[in-house]
Structures are given as structure tokens and as C-alpha cells.
């Protein structure tokens, strides 16, 4: 049977996901076209990292389907899933570099595990990947000797070691200084275009990601509340999107965590009552 190649590398159809009884995703639909950089944004706990884990096959949806390159990820056997993952790269929030290996060995890891290439070829490939992220000179350093931004760049070089068709980014901008922020943002875009890959960026950093992505999905409490190109998002009239993009303090997402009335918590009502009766 011939496999029909869709324009979308990743497709999420009506996916629900529950941890025990708590619904994390409540029927989401998303498409990630080939060659594009697409961002999933939302507050912490909105379900965006869960979506990324579903795409990577780390979690299985409670219902619905997640397809990568036309194949339903959650129905694959372990070996098939591993075959698919060899064509994916993932950048973790804090890099997740192997702390007992040097920068060079971290980037060489997958090449050594999954290919029969000679050490000489591996060396050349690793240096090319490190050069792409600007850290060829740091090849002999250990992860503990790197700054946060450098570690993220090494992890990026490691993620693209096998020239993946899909690169997943989990909060790539978290905790970075402004310069590193710009560097990582640029690298995400440049590497995606150079490799002809598709990138999915899960983030809550609006300003940085809107500069580099082609399309944005906004999530809140397990549903997609808005979507569009960066220009459409910037001009969106939706309250949630405006609050998020412009960092407004109050809006659909309240400043105050729900709780008892303020006066009650400060026992103001309790104090007033006895005074009244004492003089009565």
C-alpha cells in the first residue's frame, strides 16, 4: 500500500489526555506543516508540555490520535517507536546533557549508538554540529563547566546530531540571559531551515518566540484557545491572547489565586462583631 504523504509532518486529531481522572487535554486539534517552526504557548500547567510528550511518544493519549510522518505514535511497538525517534531531536528544558561525558562525547553519543561510522567521520560531524552552535572551541569541556546558555546550545547540537526531520523544544528560552535568548532563538530558526526540518517549540516566552516562528497555537486549561501567524496573534482582540502577549496583570487569568474572601481571611468580620456586642 502506498503511503500518502501529507503536507503536515505532525497531526493531532481530537486528542484527550487524563492523569487518573484529571483531564489535562480536552480534545485538541493541531497541525504542524513540514519545514515550519510552530510554537505552542500557554501558561504553566495548560497542557503544552503534555502535548510535546504525546508527539514524542512518551505518553499515550486517552483518546484521539497523534500522527508523526503519517504514523500513529501511540500505537507503535517499542522498536518502531525507537526507529521513529531516531529521526526526531529533542531539546530539554535544562539541556539534560550527560554529566559524565564531555561536550564532544555528548554530541557524538547518538552517532556512536546508532551508526557504524568511523571515529574519524564522527569527529568531523561532531565538530560541524558544534560549529553550527558556535561551540567548537568548547568540545573538551564538561557540562558542569558550561553556562546555562552554552549547555542549551550543546544540547541543541546533540539534538541535531542525526539531522532529524522533527525537532522538539521544551521551554528552550527558560532561564536564559538576553544574549543567549537571542542566540537560541536564531539557532532554532536557522537550523530548522538549514536541515529542512520541522520544529515544535513549547514556550511561554512570547516576545522571543514570535520573532522566529511561522505559526502559534495558544493553549489554556487543556484546549486551544487561539491560533494564527505571529502578526495575527499580535493583533488579536481576544482577551486571553492580549493578556498573555502584553503581560497584563489581570484579565481572563486572574491575578489572585481563588480563595476565601480577603476580609474573611483577615478576620475583619470576626473582629467587628464582638466589639458591637461588648458595648451593647
Amino acid at each position, binding site marked *: 500500500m502506498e503511503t500518502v504523504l501529507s503536507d503536515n509532518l505532525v497531526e493531532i486529531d481530537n486528542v484527550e489526555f487524563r492523569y487518573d481522572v484529571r483531564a489535562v487535554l480536552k480534545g485538541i486539534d493541531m497541525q504542524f506543516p513540514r519545514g515550519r517552526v510552530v510554537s505552542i504557548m500557554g501558561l504553566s500547567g495548560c497542557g503544552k508540555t503534555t502535548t510535546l510528550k504525546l508527539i*514524542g511518544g*512518551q505518553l499515550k493519549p486517552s483518546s484521539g490520535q497523534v500522527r508523526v510522518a503519517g504514523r500513529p505514535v501511540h500505537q507503535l511497538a517499542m522498536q518502531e*517507536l*525507537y*526507529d521513529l*525517534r*531516531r529521526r*526526531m531531536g*529533542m531539546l*530539554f*528544558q*535544562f539541556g*539534560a*546533557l*550527560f*554529566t559524565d561525558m564531555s561536550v564532544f562525547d555528548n554530541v557524538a*553519543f*547518538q552517532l556512536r*549508538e*546508532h551508526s557504524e561510522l568511523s571515529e574519524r567521520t564522527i569527529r568531523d560531524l561532531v565538530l560541524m554540529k558544534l560549529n553550527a552552535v558556535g561551540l567548537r572551541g568548547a568540545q573538551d569541556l564538561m557540562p558542569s563547566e558550561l553556562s546555562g546558555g552554552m549547555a542549551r546550545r550543546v544540547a541543541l547540537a546533540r539534538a541535531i546530531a542525526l539531522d532529524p526531520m522533527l525537532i522538539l523544544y521544551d521551554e528552550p528560552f527558560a532561564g536564559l540571559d538576553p544574549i543567549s535568548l537571542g542566540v537560541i532563538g536564531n539557532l532554532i530558526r536557522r537550523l530548522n531551515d538549514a536541515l529542512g526540518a520541522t520544529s515544535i517549540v513549547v514556550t511561554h516566552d512570547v516576545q522571543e518566540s514570535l520573532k522566529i516562528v511561522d505559526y502559534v497555537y495558544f493553549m489554556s486549561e487543556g484546549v486551544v484557545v487561539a491560533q494564527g501567524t505571529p502578526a495575527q496573534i499580535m493583533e488579536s482582540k481576544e482577551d486571553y491572547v492580549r493578556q498573555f502577549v502584553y503581560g497584563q496583570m489581570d484579565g481572563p487569568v486572574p491575578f489572585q489565586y481563588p480563595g476565601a474572601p480577603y476580609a474573611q481571611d483577615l478576620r475583619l468580620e470576626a473582629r467587628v462583631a464582638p466589639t458591637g456586642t461588648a458595648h451593647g
Partner: protein
Amino acid sequence: MDNFIVRALRHIGHTVIDGIWRLGYASRFFLLVLLRSGPSFRRFPLTVREIYFAGVLSLIIILVSGLFVGMVLGLQGYDTLQRYGSAEAVGTLVALSLVRELGPVVAALLFASRAGSAMTAEIGLMKATEQITALDMMAVDPIARIVGPRFWAGVISMPLLAALFSAMGIFGGYLIAVVLLGVDAGAFWSQMQASVDLRNDVMNGVIKSIVFGIAVTAIALFEGYDAPPTAEGVSGATTRTVVTSSLAVLALDFVLTAFMFRGI
């Protein structure tokens, strides 16, 4: 009052179910480690590296402890045996105590606290820093890459460490009994040679140390792999490794000794 009883019963129920669930999970984990040992063996240099970390780096504590335990056995044994005029038998006493019991047991307890706790902490931290997930996402099986080599390193190291512990202990006993207290060297060694049986004493000790090696390493690896990915989670798992594997070693020692006991 009723509420209290219901809560207490519910708590007991939860504890029992959790315990059984965890035992089942640990058994499945252990089975998986065995099933995926093939890929682990294909990465044998990794196992050799782990033998260095778990075995070679434990040598100092094992050798020094063995020496002192042997010296104490020499002193105590001499003190008791000379009352019956058979001080030469101190060699037999030291050798049999070490080879049959103290060598495997004390070496396993030291191994649990020195190498087992390190394995748990290392794997727990790898999990907390997403290194295990990263491996899985790179299509590399973490059980075969991380757990397998450590497991076999522990199983291979343990009998060797126990043997070195016993050898060092016998040397300690010799220093005290022969060099310090003047027991005849010929009688010390010949009585030992005559009374220590290869199959019933030495081999039984080796079997014990292999079983302890499996138990301690499997517990340490499971605790690390199952540790909640937080600072408290990893520290709790490390403590549980030392406590559980020490208890397991002592309990298994009784069971194995009962099976190996030849009667009078």
C-alpha cells in the same frame, strides 16, 4: 470515632496495596534488566567502567575492614581457644568464620553503603535532570544502557570483594595469632587447610556473595530508577537502598545458611 477507624483502615489498605504494587513493579523491573542484558553485554566496556566505580573504588574500605575484622577474630578466638588448650585452632576459626559468614555478609553490607548508595543517587539524579528521558528520546534503551551494565558490574564485583575481604581477614588473623601472640605458624595454616572444605565452605560463601550481589545491586538500581525526581526523593531513595539492602542481606543470609546447613 467511626471516622478515625475508617481512616485507619483506609490507611492500612493503601499501605498494603502500595507495598504490593511496588513489589510487583520492582519484580518487573528486575525481569526487564535480565531480558535486556543482551544489549548491555554488547556494551561490555560500560560494564568494565562500572566494575571500576563499584568494585575497584570499594577496595580500600573492603580491605581495611577485612583486616580489622580478621584481627578481632584472631584476638577473640585465641582468648577463648587457649582456655581449652587448642590455641592452634584459631586459624580454623578465623578462616571458617570469614569464608562462610563474615566475608560475604560484611562485604555485602559495606558494598551496599559504599557502592549501592552511589548507584541510587547517580541514577536518581540522572532521572531528576531528565538524562534518562533524554536517552529514551534518543532511541537508546535506558535499561540496557544505564541499568544493565551497573547490575552486572555489581554481580561480578561482589564475590571478588567478598573473597578479598576474607583473604585480608585471614591475614589479619595470622598477624594477631602468629606474629603477635606466638601461635605456631605451621599449626595455624595446616589446621586451617585441613578443616576448610572447598565445596562446603568456600563455594557456599561464593554462592552467598553472588546472591547478595544480585540483591544489593537490584535494590540500589530500582530505588534510583523509581526515585521521585526531587532532592528529597533522591535522598530518601538513597537511605532506602542502604536500609532495605542491609536487611535483605541479613535475611537472605539466614535463608541460605539454613539451606546449606549440613546438620551435626
